[in-house]
């Protein structure tokens, strides 16, 4: 049965940190010295040092590609360092495999969960543990641990039926069953509602209070200030500072992360021109994926000159909604007016025809849906822009295609070897900039974007957000689906929430707050207020 390793009761984390920092005789739980890892194209870690004491909640911050994940993979034994040493409780250790890491007491919760959808919670947990599989005994242990840390879980449920928050609980409980002395959390809050984040923080503080060290990777600086006592900042594979985030402040951390000041947005007043550009009118749809979400009676309007944001936890119908809007999942002609683009019923059109009507679309999945990975940027540009005079008499006008692609690369600062480079050779952030650029430079009437800044570093993300605002200032209608609430609050003129396939009333960011939106994300929003789609166009916000 699970026992607490330390007899001391829960302490506040701040106290725990003070204790370890003032007590010089405490041996660090984990010490990394001069860790170096070189991949064919980049130096991922270049002489990285890190020290974590028992009871520390230690933040590791940096942009995408700064080397945080590589460093954590080295600690967990997934990747081997080229040079440097790892000390565990004062002694030098070699961690060649994750099993070695688990044996000495290191647990890791991955950013992209390492769960198996077709297996039950108990089976998933058994896969990460040593020894034979005894379902009944394991289920009992899962229940007792999840109760102790306030992480309710039913061991018999299949993982595909769990929400993202519940899936993360499975990962955490899997680690806790090993009674870890060091827990690595890789971007744990990127998929959680604000309320779930609060709960997670309670659990982490409780763990730290019991003496467990936590390495907390994140790029959300506010959270780090709230939770962590120490922060190691990384940039381009090197440590640029070890600071107390509470003293340093978010702006200071950001400066250390990106090496310069963050650009500010020019937002300006909404220029709403009361023209219904994109209308969803009582759209209902059954998902063709058995694990998907059915859409129920969705109605809202996006006017020209505004940005509407759709908040929600992934798996609540975003995929289905986007497919219904983009045309990947057309409806029968009898229900054509469920989606209207510029006043024209369009729900029965395929994606190509809808683009003719002035809709452009940036899907969440870049490789495969946004671009064809092995094709060049030129060819990928042609795929959605051929109607803009790039094809004459069935022949491709290579010169114009290249001009267009080069313009996108230039406008959005896409780092690539040229427009002849294969799409898959670009990093995630650069590819996203290219796709956004391709869709925006077509001067659309309606732009639909899913997760515009997912996996994009801070600098590029602010460039993309500014471009979205610029497009709205040119009176286009912009619909943004995002899991990042901060982002939606920053750029949107109105926000709606999608939960369990239903859509909430719209709110102006100034008239709501994270707490209300977070509550709505769990499905608790006023039904009666649902935005009416009226012909008079007076029902802007309820």
């Amino acid at each position, binding site marked *: 049965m699970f026992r607490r390793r330390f007899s001391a009761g829960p302490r506040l984390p701040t106290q725990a940190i003070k204790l370890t920092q003032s007590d010089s005789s405490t041996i660090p739980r984990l010490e990394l010295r001069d860790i170096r890892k070189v991949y064919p194209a980049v130096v991922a870690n270049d002489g990285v040092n890190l020290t974590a004491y028992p009871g520390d909640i230690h933040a590791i911050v940096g942009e995408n590609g700064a080397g945080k994940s590589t460093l954590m993979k080295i600690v967990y034994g997934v990747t081997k360092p080229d040079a440097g040493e790892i000390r565990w409780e004062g002694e030098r250790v070699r961690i060649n495999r994750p099993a070695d890491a688990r044996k000495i007491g290191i647990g890791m919760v991955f950013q992209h969960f390492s769960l*198996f959808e077709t297996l039950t919670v108990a089976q998933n947990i058994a896969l*990460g543990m040593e020894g034979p599989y005894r379902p009944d005994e394991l289920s009992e242990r899962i229940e007792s641990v999840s109760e102790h840390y306030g992480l309710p879980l039913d061991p018999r449920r299949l993982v595909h039926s769990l929400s993202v928050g519940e899936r993360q609980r499975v990962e955490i409980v899997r680690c806790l069953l090993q009674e870890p002395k060091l827990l690595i959390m890789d971007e744990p809050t990127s998929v959680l509602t604000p309320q779930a984040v609060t709960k997670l923080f309670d659990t982490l503080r409780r763990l730290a209070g019991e003496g467990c060290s936590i390495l907390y990777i994140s790029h959300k600086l506010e959270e780090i200030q709230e939770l962590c006592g120490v922060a190691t900042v990384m940039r381009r594979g090197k440590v640029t500072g070890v600071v107390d985030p509470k003293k340093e402040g978010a702006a200071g951390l950001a400066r250390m992360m990106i090496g310069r000041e963050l650009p500010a947005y020019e937002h300006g007043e909404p220029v709403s021109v009361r023209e219904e550009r994109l209308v969803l009118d009582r759209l209902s749809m059954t998902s063709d994926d058995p694990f998907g979400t059915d859409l129920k009676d969705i109605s809202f309007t996006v006017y020209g000159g505004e940005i509407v944001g759709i908040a929600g936890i992934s798996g609540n119908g975003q995929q289905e909604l986007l497919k219904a809007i983009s045309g990947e999942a057309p409806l029968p002609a009898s229900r054509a007016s469920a989606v209207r683009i510029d006043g024209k019923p369009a729900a029965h059109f395929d994606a190509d025809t809808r683009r003719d009507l002035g809709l452009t679309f940036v899907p969440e999945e870049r490789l495969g849906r946004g671009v064809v990975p092995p094709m060049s940027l030129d060819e990928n540009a042609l795929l959605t822009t051929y109607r803009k005079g790039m094809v004459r008499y069935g022949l491709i006008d290579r010169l114009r295609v290249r001009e267009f692609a080069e313009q996108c690369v230039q406008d959005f600062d896409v780092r690539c070897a040229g427009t002849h480079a294969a799409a898959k050779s670009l990093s995630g952030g650069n590819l996203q900039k290219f796709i956004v650029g391709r869709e925006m430079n077509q001067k659309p009437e309606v732009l639909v974007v899913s997760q515009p800044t997912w996996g994009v570093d801070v600098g590029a993300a602010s460039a993309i957000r500014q471009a979205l605002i610029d497009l709205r200032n040119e009176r286009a209608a912009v619909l943004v689906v995002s899991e990042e609430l901060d982002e939606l609050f920053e750029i949107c003129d109105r926000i709606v929430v999608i939960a369990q396939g239903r859509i909430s009333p719209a709110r102006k960011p100034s008239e709501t707050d994270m707490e209300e939106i977070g509550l709505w994300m769990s499905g608790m929003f006023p039904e009666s207020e649902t935005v009416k789609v009226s012909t008079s166009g007076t029902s802007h916000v309820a």
Partner: protein
Amino acid sequence: MTETIVGILLATLGAGTPLVFATLGELITEKSGVLNLGVEGMMLIGAVCGFAAAAESGSLWFGVVISMFAGGGMALLFGILTLTFQANQVAAGLALTIFGIGTSAYIGLDYTSVTLPNIDPIQLPFLSDIPVIGRLLFSLDPLIYLSFAMFGAISWFLYRTKGGLVLRAVGESPESAVSLGHHVIAIRYLAVWFGGAMAGLGGAYLALVYTPLWVEEMTAGRGWIALALVVFSTWRPSRVMVGAYLFGGVTIVQFHIQGFGVDIPSQLLSTLPYLATILVLVLISRDIHTIRLNAPASLGKPYHPDL
């Protein structure tokens, strides 16, 4: 009348058994996420090597063991190509079949007119004396008992043991399995090898027990039926058994119909087992939910280990 029915049922068991072996083997291979289209080739190599070994040594059991080594060896060849060198699984599997057809014909040149003694059925004491059931279930040849045992063992392994859990996990998401510290490539090698050995055994049953003769391309597409059975049984062992015996049953029944002199061309009748098996399995496996729950999600996709 009872006599005829018992005869048909016994013949059905015999006709279904090669498929039981080959399909259960391929099921394990596919559960690990590897698609080996070379079942037909592995069956043929197993059949000819087993037959040759039995004819030379005079021991049927020696032949059976050799057939498993031969089938397993073919599968390892496939494993080296697709797992170590990351070759395309579809192309490598097709090549394996063509290689197997040609090579087995060459090895079998000297054995086309050789006959082997029959394997004696095992009469289980007392139980085999029960009327009808005794003959149907308790006085069968040893390889049929082995096929029953394999079915039980594989079902137990897949759904009751940690090893089975790991196998299914590797087939669903190799990346996740690696992050938990499981050795994806090694597990896939084992699964591929097991599939080959079972295909070889299926071939051996055809050549050593069912006919018992060596004829070129004697598997007559059973390897392909095995591949289809795995898919249409939605990767579940119990449905594999249903499909295999259905195929065996229709094969035998259409022989009898031909014997009665019904006025249907025999070529058409001999397509019946293939048609009926696929049709029935398509009908019972239409539920997309069970497919998603049981199909190995990474099937056919090569896994590149992280540097």
